[in-house]
């Protein structure tokens, strides 16, 4: 590496004595205002006070930042954060005939994004999977393992393109906006997590209230999950213990009037297309329709119940009520202490009264709201029960 090599020092050499030497005076030049080196030089002189150590430290920091940036964006290629997911054996063994039951996001390797995946990401993910699983590739990559000369050249694994079919199906569904909406409505992961949702009985059984932390830990993810169905975006979130009164009220207001796009066509029974019987078809169609409506109703009721439960357990509601009460008492105390009231004229009194009236009205309204909501929820539940019964009977009758 070192290209220069010096000769051996003569033995007779003695160090010369140096008498206070220094380099010749500098000359002034004007640099051309170009180049990365100039920026470095200016940083060195302006930011780092001519100190090479400080500059080196800065450069090192910059380099690390750059490295992090490169690492975060994957291996150079910009795949919009699709990444590579390991494919389990079950996933690869999926039966394309059972396509309705597949987890399409897992098939495309997007389980970490799910409903958040953008069209662009789906496209990239699909391309990646196709490159890996295309039947054309399989034939060459899996050489015949059979030692029998009779079977050589014959592709033994006839099920080779099964997973490719699954990929195609997943791509077809996820790139079609309507189909994707239907699929997202009944996403496996979502259904699973909904089963674990707390019901009023969960907490009444234990007979002890949740701590504040537990409350937020339980309900925050639930509302985050449900927010995807809102037609209105962005959706107000639960917030935290210190959220303002306006935020809390806004939150409940939004969720009691939740406008959901969720629908249940995906769970429809197959219409037997081959059948010539028109009546048969119509019957199934009708049943599917009622089933969809029932499910939708159930879903609304479920959400309503969830919000009710949250409201009843929300520690902030208690706090807000407490604060209001305190404010009222403070006012009362102020009224009953006329000594201090001498300075504050009647105007403030009138104000207080107005405020009080307003608050009372608000509370009344809130109470009425809650009552109405409960009634509605009960109603919905009743109806749902009735519908279920009817459906059962219908099923039995047919």
């Amino acid at each position: 590496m070192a290209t220069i090599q010096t000769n051996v020092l003569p033995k007779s050499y003695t160090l010369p004595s140096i008498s206070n030497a220094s380099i010749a005076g500098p000359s002034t030049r004007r640099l051309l205002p170009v180049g990365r080196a100039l920026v470095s030089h200016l940083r060195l002189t302006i930011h780092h006070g001519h100190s090479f150590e400080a500059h080196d430290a800065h450069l090192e920091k910059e380099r690390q930042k750059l490295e992090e940036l490169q690492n975060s964006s994957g291996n150079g290629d910009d795949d919009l954060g699709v990444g590579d997911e390991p494919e389990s054996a079950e996933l690869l063994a999926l039966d394309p005939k059972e396509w309705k039951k597949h987890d399409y996001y897992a098939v495309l390797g997007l389980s970490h994004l799910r409903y958040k995946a953008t069209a662009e990401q789906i496209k990239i993910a699909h391309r990646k999977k196709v490159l890996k699983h295309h039947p054309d590739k399989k034939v060459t990559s899996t050489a015949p393992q059979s030692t029998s000369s009779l079977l050589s050249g014959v592709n033994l694994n006839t099920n080779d393109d099964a997973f490719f079919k699954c990929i195609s199906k997943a791509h077809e569904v996820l790139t079609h906006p309507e189909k994707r909406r239907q699929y997202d409505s009944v996403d496996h992961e979502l259904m699973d997590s909904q089963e674990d949702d707390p019901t009023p009985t969960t907490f009444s059984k234990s007979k002890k209230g949740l701590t504040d932390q537990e409350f937020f830990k339980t309900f925050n993810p639930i509302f985050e999950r449900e927010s995807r169905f809102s037609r209105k975006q962005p959706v107000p979130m639960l917030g935290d213990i210190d959220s303002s009164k306006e935020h809390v009220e806004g939150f409940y207001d939004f969720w009691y009037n939740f406008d959901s796009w969720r629908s249940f066509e995906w769970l429809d029974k197959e219409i037997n297309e081959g059948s010539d019987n028109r009546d048969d078809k119509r019957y199934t169609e009708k049943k599917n329709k009622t089933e969809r409506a029932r499910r939708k109703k159930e879903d609304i009721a479920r959400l309503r119940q969830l919000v009710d439960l949250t409201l009843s357990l929300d520690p902030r509601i208690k706090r807000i009520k407490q604060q209001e009460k305190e404010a009222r008492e403070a006012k009362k105390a102020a009224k009953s202490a006329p000594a201090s009231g001498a300075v504050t004229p009647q105007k403030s009194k009138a104000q207080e009264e107005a405020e009080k009236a307003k608050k009372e009205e608000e509370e009344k309204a809130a109470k009425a709201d809650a009552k109405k909501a409960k009634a509605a929820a009960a109603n919905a539940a009743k109806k749902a029960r009735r519908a279920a019964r009817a459906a059962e009977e219908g099923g039995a009758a047919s």
Partner: protein
Amino acid sequence: MASSTQNGSADPSTEVSNLPDVVGINFGNSFASIAVFTKDGQAECIANEDGERQIACALSFFGEEMYIGSPAKAQLVKNSKNTIVGFRNHLGLKFSEISQSQSTTSAPIIQHPDIPDEPAYKVAILHPAPAPLPKSTTGTPAASSAPTPRSEPIPGERILTVSEVTTIFLKSLLQSAEDFLGKRVQGAVITVPPNFTDTQKDALEKAATDAGIKVYQLLEEPAAVAAVTTAEVWSSTLPADRTQLIVDVGSSSLSLSLLALREGLAHVLASTSLNSTGGDAIDAKLITFFATEFTKKTKTPLTVCSENPSTADARAEAKLRLAVEHTKRTVSASPGAATCSVESLKGGVDFTGTINRLRFDMLVRPIYDSIARSVSELLASANVDAHQVDEIVYVGGTTCLPGLDEHICLAGGFSDDINTPFSMGTVIGGGIGDPTTVLARGCALQAALIASLTDEDEELRKAFERGSELLEVNTISKTLGLVFPDDSGNEIGGTWIPLVPFGTTLPARRTATFDIGLSEESKRFAFELWEITESIQVEKIIPPKEETSDADDEEDEEEEDVEVKHKTITKESLLGAAEAEAALGIQVKGPSKDAGKWTTTVQATLVVTASGALELSVAEIGKDGVVVTVNVAAQQ
């Protein structure tokens, strides 16, 4: 049916494209070029809609149409009075400052009718016909007392100031760049010639702003070249510290700059510009050549490039001028015959002529000579010997001619191993050293650099403003280095290891790695820190007899001695010295001729602080290596 928001709207995790959306514009008097960043992260000169990388700075009006670029230049033949060329150099000048002497075939510059002392161009145009009457809704024509509007365009004239012409032209360049990138351009760096005054620069900046370009910086042409040559892509083999000569041959001017590059920092040692030499002179020679050929072949008299414009065949000359453009490019590209064909050159007679590279070089020798002479004069004025120049960089289409490169290298007296884009092989095929695109690419690089500055570097942006004081720096005036004494008895008494070359901006830090020879019995080594000056020693040798001159007859003086130049070093002052025992000496093993020698590898780092104090450390590479430091105080 479902809207796109229904499935959530996750933001993409990263930007879709991270190409810097900046453009570099080389705005010359005759040609312009634009460069942007392409997908592979390189600055590339791009073609406009006409497929031209060299976009002619011309604007032509014909009827209702406006032509920009090469189509406009072609109008010089038939529609020369409505064609505007060469407007860049008039930018920011007053009418009284523009010399009216040169006769042009293009639209003449006139006094603006309304604004005092403002140069302008007058062109004849057709205003578009007014729109026909609006159709009545009932279907039957409404009775109207108004006269029927004219359905033909109305002839008129348009007065354009130089600034307006520039704005129109720059807008078309910007449009081409945006079409290529597919997004809005955030900012641009534009070249200016070094002789532009501040008023002219202001005028250019204003014209660019009017065209919708955010100008990051107006970059002088040598600086734009330095932006490319200091970039890593330029060359991996050239030393970081070098003296560079920039030869910029425009169509009407020649500008030469001698730069000192010191690890990416560049400053001008000397520069000069001439308005007499350039590509136009070569055109004139070629046109005259082909005109004579035409007369010889067809017996049709043809006068071109004459002093008296009334006798010249202006149209034939314009046609030839367009045609030789192509001839020149062919000569640059291949040594074979280059054709020049013009249909109906004069009197309905077509012309096809050829010229090969040798003939071409002979023809334009006077221009080559004048360029080479200017180079020699510049070097003499800067007190730099031709052998001290490490690299020549060419700018402009004319410098694509290999004959010019050969002539400059030979006549300028440069050393044989000088680096030029031709010797490095970077001219052909749009390489990095392509003289026609280097300016635009430099601007694009610079624009990307300025765009990448973050908010914390706000102060640094000031350096890119005009006349910034941040660029005034102190440089060391003499080269510093180490001498490792030995018995070799050469002029400096040892091995010379240069560390900081003269002209390096302070503060500076340089590192060198090398092997030190040790003797077997004692591992002692010593070194001295010297300040030196480099010079060129000329030795005269009488050439061998058989080397008769195969130079051209035109060269009058026959040199009897061949001058051989050596680089020499003169010690100026001793700054420090130290000695130590090496701890990590190793013996070279194996069959090589160095076997049995003892060596150790050291790294020498010399820091010159802003005040001029020196901090030298020589350290053995490896664990537990010996470290020697020498400090020299700054001048009192």
